[in-house]
């Protein structure tokens, strides 16, 4: 319970009026992190605000502390007993992820129990949906009689009270509703600390919406104040469930931290919260053999949830020591995996910026600890990327590594591509980088593909290598062996032939304006004609003194005089 001192000055206090009872609003926040078997991770936020007020007796409530005023006014105006609203993006995959703490259907779902004092439930429902639509910036105004039902058995009240007349229940779902930042922001505003302190700082939309499943919900119901249940308080629970995908958010690496999930770390608890905790599910990791959780925490708690007893490591954010020296908490779950890198792999990419030049980089990795082996690199580059062989550099471990054999056939425009073959010796446990500069050509407008800004593809480089083998191999090719091991002929015992294909490249070329052929021809020919015209004028004409032409009257007079045969004016 949080007590707050009254701001009543001494002079104004009269002995007759009893001092107002201290407010009994409470706020708790909690985050549960549960690693899933598929490598994804499930984070569930729950924020609970307990509102101790009595608006059933008709007295208007005007003092709000932790409970959001916008919601309180709506609830009291429409005499809502229970309100459950959820916005979900994605579908919860129970087979892969298990059971969620708070399930929700994709789209928007709203179900409301009205008080039994309400006379026109349909009218109140319609107005309520419109008001909620404004509060949450969602199109809940599409809820009308065509998608509203009154379930008789499935949605009994979750809070106190024995009202079971289904006339006061309304349920609607909008499966098409999309969740985005505009819905998250007003939802976050309903929290006492907003998104400024506590667990809500982690809720940043750029990461939250880049997930497999995202659901934000709001549940309002009356509950008992304490275990004795002498009086009811109103509970508002705001929950946010999100599942981060291993490949989309985790970059394929099975290692999760608060920073990787939310791009933020925790720095303090919400000052208005009576309890602020982070729970990490470590039931599958009793001795720490599956994954390692850091920073370590001594607190451990067990809870029965969804019919199963689970063990959780707890971080108490109200305790300043949880944040350590750095004043920030970023818990890290790292899975122990025995990953062995293959002895040889390659990568290729285009470097540079702009549409004029670029550089092709090919990286060849030799992960063998002590054996070096030769590789033959073959590059076929189309003619419109003009390679400059004098810019070719091959470096291993920071030093120049000269290839022992180079065969280069330069390209001929519109006839054949570049061909480069090199024999490079890869030193053990090293990365060899081959770089070459190129220039991008401007093609004729008919030579571009229909979608020219997609870019042009450059085929994969082929790297043929003789990789040292772990076991001695059999050079006798007549022996019976499965098909998959007998494709490449085996000449030596200690190394095998391997071909690696790198990534293809996508390169943009500068494009002319395709709508302009006629205009360009006209304009350029105009410029040439300007040159021709000026020079023609100067070449074929001579300078003469200009006699001014006579006025109109004189010209008419001259015509008449010519007719008369008299000398002109």
């Amino acid at each position, binding site marked *: 319970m949080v007590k707050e001192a009254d701001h009543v000055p001494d002079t104004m206090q009269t002995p007759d009026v009893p001092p107002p009872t201290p407010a009994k609003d409470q706020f708790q926040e909690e985050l549960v992190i549960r690693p899933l078997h598929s490598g994804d991770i499930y984070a569930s936020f729950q924020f609970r605000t307990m509102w101790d007020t009595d608006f059933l007796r008709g007295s208007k409530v005007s003092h709000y502390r932790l409970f959001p005023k916008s919601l309180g006014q709506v609830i009291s105006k429409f005499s809502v007993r229970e309100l459950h609203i959820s916005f979900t993006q994605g579908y919860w995959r129970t087979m892969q992820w298990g059971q969620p703490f708070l399930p929700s259907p994709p789209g928007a779902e709203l179900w409301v129990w009205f008080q039994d004092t309400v006379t026109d439930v349909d009218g109140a429902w319609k107005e309520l949906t419109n008001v909620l639509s404004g509060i949450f910036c969602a199109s809940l105004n599409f809820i009308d009689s065509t998608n509203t039902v009154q379930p008789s058995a499935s949605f009994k009240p979750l809070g106190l009270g024995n009202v079971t007349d289904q006339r006061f229940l309304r349920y609607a779902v909008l499966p098409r509703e999309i969740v985005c930042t505009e819905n998250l922001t007003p939802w976050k505003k309903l929290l006492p600390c907003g998104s400024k302190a506590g667990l809500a700082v982690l809720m940043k939309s750029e990461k939250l919406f880049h997930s497999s499943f995202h659901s934000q919900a709001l549940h309002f119901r009356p509950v008992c104040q304490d275990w004795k249940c002498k009086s009811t308080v109103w509970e508002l629970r705001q929950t946010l469930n999100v599942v981060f995908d291993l490949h989309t958010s985790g970059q394929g690496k099975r290692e999760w931290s608060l920073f990787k999930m939310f791009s933020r770390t925790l720095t303090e608890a919400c000052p208005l919260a009576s309890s602020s905790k982070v729970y990490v599910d470590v039931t599958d990791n009793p001795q720490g053999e599956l994954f390692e959780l850091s920073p370590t925490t001594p607190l451990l708690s067990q809870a029965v949830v969804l019919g199963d007893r689970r063990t959780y490591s707890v971080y108490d954010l109200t305790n300043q020591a949880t944040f350590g020296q750095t004043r920030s908490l970023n818990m890290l779950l790292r899975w122990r995996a025995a990953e062995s890198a293959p002895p040889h792999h390659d990568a290729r990419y285009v470097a540079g910026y702009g549409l004029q030049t670029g550089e092709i980089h090919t990286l060849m990795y030799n992960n063998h600890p002590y054996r070096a082996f030769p590789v033959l690199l073959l590059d076929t580059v189309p003619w419109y990327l003009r390679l400059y062989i004098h810019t070719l550099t091959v470096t291993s471990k920071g030093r120049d590594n000269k290839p022992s054999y180079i065969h280069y056939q*330069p390209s001929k425009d519109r006839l054949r591509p570049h061909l480069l073959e090199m024999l490079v010796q890869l030193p053990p446990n090293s990365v060899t980088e081959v770089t070459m500069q190129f220039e991008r050509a401007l093609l004729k407008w008919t030579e571009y593909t229909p979608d020219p800004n997609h870019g042009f593809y450059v085929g994969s480089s082929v790297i043929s290598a003789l990789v040292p083998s772990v076991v001695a191999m059999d050079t006798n090719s007549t022996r019976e062996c499965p098909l998959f091991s007998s494709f490449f002929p085996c000449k030596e015992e200690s190394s095998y032939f391997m071909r690696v294909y790198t990534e293809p490249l996508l390169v943009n070329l500068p494009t002319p304006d395709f709508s302009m052929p006629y205009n360009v021809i006209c304009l350029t020919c105009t*410029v040439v004609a300007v040159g021709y015209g000026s020079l023609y004028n100067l070449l074929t004409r001579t300078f003469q003194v200009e006699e001014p032409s006579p006025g109109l009257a004189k010209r008419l007079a001259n015509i008449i005089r010519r007719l008369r045969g008299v000398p002109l004016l």
Partner: protein
Amino acid sequence: MAAPLTLLLIVAVTIRAVLFRSSLAELIPERVEVVSPLNAWKRVVEGLALLDLGVSPYAGDVFHETPLIIYFFHFVIDYAEIVFMVMTRLVGCVFLLQFRKQKYALEAERYPLDCLELIRTPKEMYYIPLKVAMFYLLNPFTILSCVAKSTCGLNNAVIALFILCTVKGSSLMSAIFLALATYQSIYPLTLFAPALLYLLQRLYIPVNWQRSSFWLFTTQYTFMYLGSLCVMVCLSFFLLSSWDFLSSVYGFILSVPDLTPNIGLFWYFFAEMFEHFRLFFICVFQINVFFYTIPLSIKLKEHPIFLIFMQIAIISIFKSYPTVGDIALYMAFLPAWNHLYRFLRNIFLVSVVLLACSALFPVLWHLWIYAGSANSNFYYAITLLFNVAQILLVSDYFYAYLRREHHLTHGLYLKRKDGSEATLVLK
């Protein structure tokens, strides 16, 4: 004359040396306004690297220089910067020397008295060579071209030496240098006519079809020219033992397969050309460079030096891969026609447009290629404007020259029949 010239040379060398050592030395050789696929330094280095690899430089489509350039740079590759600076020095000095000799005395007696103010005094003419050298050496276009190590500087040097030899009257050397210039890029072929006219004038042989002395000299000069050209082509053959270079160099210049943007008119025109008409328009555009020779030679047969200027200007504007180095060559001549200033009609407009376009070229290139917010039309538009300005400049000077000639023969202050001041028009 020696002291100002030395000072000028020192200033020019300093500017170039400073730029060579600065970070701009990496940016400038990449600029498409300064280098073209024909004369980029990067391509010269590429050609030499291909030769080292054992592949013929003409096997690919990157190298379009003549074999003699390979010969030349094979030995001086390490001193490239110095070579280019020397070349520009050479051109500057050459310009200086040739403009010393200007026919002045010939003109004085023929003209009416009131034209004396049109004729240049020896005092004015004393400083013209220095001004010409200054215009060339300190022209930003030349500086950029030198720092980019574009072989355009070498071409300019050869043309300047050719002009010097012509002015000095040595027909053999003139023929050799003209052959070298033609061998480098085909277009200086049009300078054959003005060179011939000048040498004939110098030898007091009138241009008369019936005279045998005319034909004798013409055939002599033609043989010298064609002979040196053949020698150079054969020498090139023996370098790599193949005739590949003919299609790589001359075929490239004439058929314009590479559409890299530059300051000329060809690239966008042929990028947007309908395939059906490509050959037709190639022929039209190439003929456009050559066909002004005969009419201009007829009109300017008394004034071969001005004819050389006009020809060089027309080549620079209408050639297939122009660069700013070519423009710098004909702009260097402009101080020699200082006396035409009073007859120029558009000089302010032209100079402003040229300045504005030179400033806009890198801006619009950046917007198209790097920022992606403009497209090729912007750069093309500036190209058009730049070329229109150049055409106006050249035709303006031509107009002024012809008008001065008219005044020299008819008097400066002309009067109409009724005695009022006359206006001259072209009719």
